């Protein structure tokens, strides 16, 4: 995947350098489909607050139109939000991305620890390592993507992920 992304990145750079709005050779009438790479959900086992966790993944947009990740659904969570990083009082903190997260045409978006992520709150169940979590991603073009994400171990400090109390608003 990394190589593919590099190639796509190169295409973008060349197009920009040319300052021409030439149609992408990747574009077609249907448009290539969005896809997801390497999804995972952080375990709640051992978490200070086991009622919430986060999902991380990479969204690949091979098409010629930008899209936004506007939301996600998860049957195991009463509330799901898309979070972004913002600077507040000289500190990076998380907050809900009200307009969604931008996935540029011909490029990708990484949701990673310490970066944008999908926040799963008011969990109806704990997530143990090795569980599989079903998510549905919703995009600005009306499309959805079903994702099965394995639950994996804690790999960083828990506090790192948590926003200053996100404003609750029921998902979908």
């Amino acid at each position, binding site marked *: *995947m990394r190589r593919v992304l590099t190639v796509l990145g190169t295409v973008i750079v060349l197009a920009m350098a040319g300052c021409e709005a030439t149609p992408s050779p990747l574009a077609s009438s249907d448009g290539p489909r969005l896809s997801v790479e390497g*999804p995972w959900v952080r375990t709640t086992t051992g978490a200070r607050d086991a009622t919430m966790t986060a999902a991380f993944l990479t969204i690949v947009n091979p098409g010629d139109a930008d899209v936004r990740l506007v939301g996600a659904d998860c049957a195991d969570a009463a509330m799901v939000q898309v979070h972004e990083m913002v600077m507040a009082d000289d500190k990076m903190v998380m907050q809900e991305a009200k307009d969604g997260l931008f996935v540029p045409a011909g490029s990708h978006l990484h949701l990673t620890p310490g970066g944008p992520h999908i926040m799963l709150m008011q969990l109806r169940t704990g997530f143990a390592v*090795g569980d599989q979590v079903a998510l549905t991603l919703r995009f600005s073009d009306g499309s959805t993507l079903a994702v099965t994400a*394995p639950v994996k171990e804690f790999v960083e400090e828990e506090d790192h992920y948590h926003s200053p109390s996100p404003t609750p608003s029921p998902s979908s």
Partner: protein
Amino acid sequence: MTGVSEPTPEPAPGNGADGPPRLQRRRLLGYAGVASAGAVVGGVAGAGIARASTPVPVAPQPAVIRQDYSPHETHQAGITTPVPAVTRLLAFTLTELAVEPLTKLLKLWSGDIQALMAGRPIPGDPTPDLARTGVSLTITVGLGPRVFSLAPLRSKRPDGFVEIPAMAHDRLQERWCGGDLVVIVAADDATTVDYAARRLARDAATFARPGWVQDGSWRGTDASGEPVTGRNLFGQLDGSGNPSGDLLAQTVWAADPQPWFAGGTTLVVRRIQMDLDFWDRTTAERQEKVIGRRLDTGAPLTGTVETDALDLAAVGESGAPVIPLDAHARRSHPDENSARRMLRRGLNYTSTEVVDGRPVTTAGLVFLAFCADLAEQFVPVQQRLDANDALNDWTTAIGSAVFALPGGFAKDDWIARALFD
């Protein structure tokens, strides 16, 4: 340690019919190169190569270093693919012997394997920058006998998947034996192996306790990087006469398996300690008679090159067989074992442990034998060697474990899924 000898030089090809594009291309170019060099391969060099009834004698060996392999083929990678420089085997014991934790672990590992072998970090990787392509990484998973004692899996045990019976020369140590699961991680360099093995072990920690870990090295290339038969620490070429082509397939892949085991094989891992000091004191002439092959070229004592067939009937001026009756290459030869063969994959090890406050170094070979049917292939050959093999004076098995290795898994699937259907 040269094991079962069989005089076909063609090495193992890729790990399945649908080789990764890079490998397929390499193979294609390889055959084309042979043809343009004037060798008579003619009509054999096309699509029919895998089904040719006789091995193509001039086929080039697949490149060893800087390869990329896929876990999504008929067979797992790391079995018939070339042996790279570094291999680590990790055994695990399930904390709870039950289907659910086992399937969870296999799903996690499958995602990890798919990412790592593609040169990508695993999901949630805390050290993502260690991932890399072109490092010949293979990750191979096997299931130990206890898995098939689970009630729903009892009827799924592969044919001939048996524990190895005790041998008179064995001096087995519990710490090198058994395991419910094995992961074999191999790559061009030790850093890649360290990285991948650690990620896989971390994901296993919820479900399994770590068991033995065996590290081995191999030098499967010559000074210019071309593939060659490697040497064990006795200095012998080790792996001469491994089966190839159709014979390799018959030797290794389970015949008429249950659906879940399609493309599978069974593996025995033997930790063979070698008495290097005693070997060093042995004359070269004796060393060659012990094995039945020349040390420098690996040629049979009745031949001139490594790939020559052994002439087991040849006698010298004294009337004694040129290849002695107790020579390892004779005793293990298919002609003396009802045509029984195995695919051997050797790894050299040197291990230093502190005993009574002093460092003690031992060395040997982590010997891997892949068989379609362990009971029918490895066991009788090993029993024959146990009864009489000149090499037994220098070698001692101190570890033994068996595993069933399922076939590869599809991109949206996980390894051995059909076992649990």
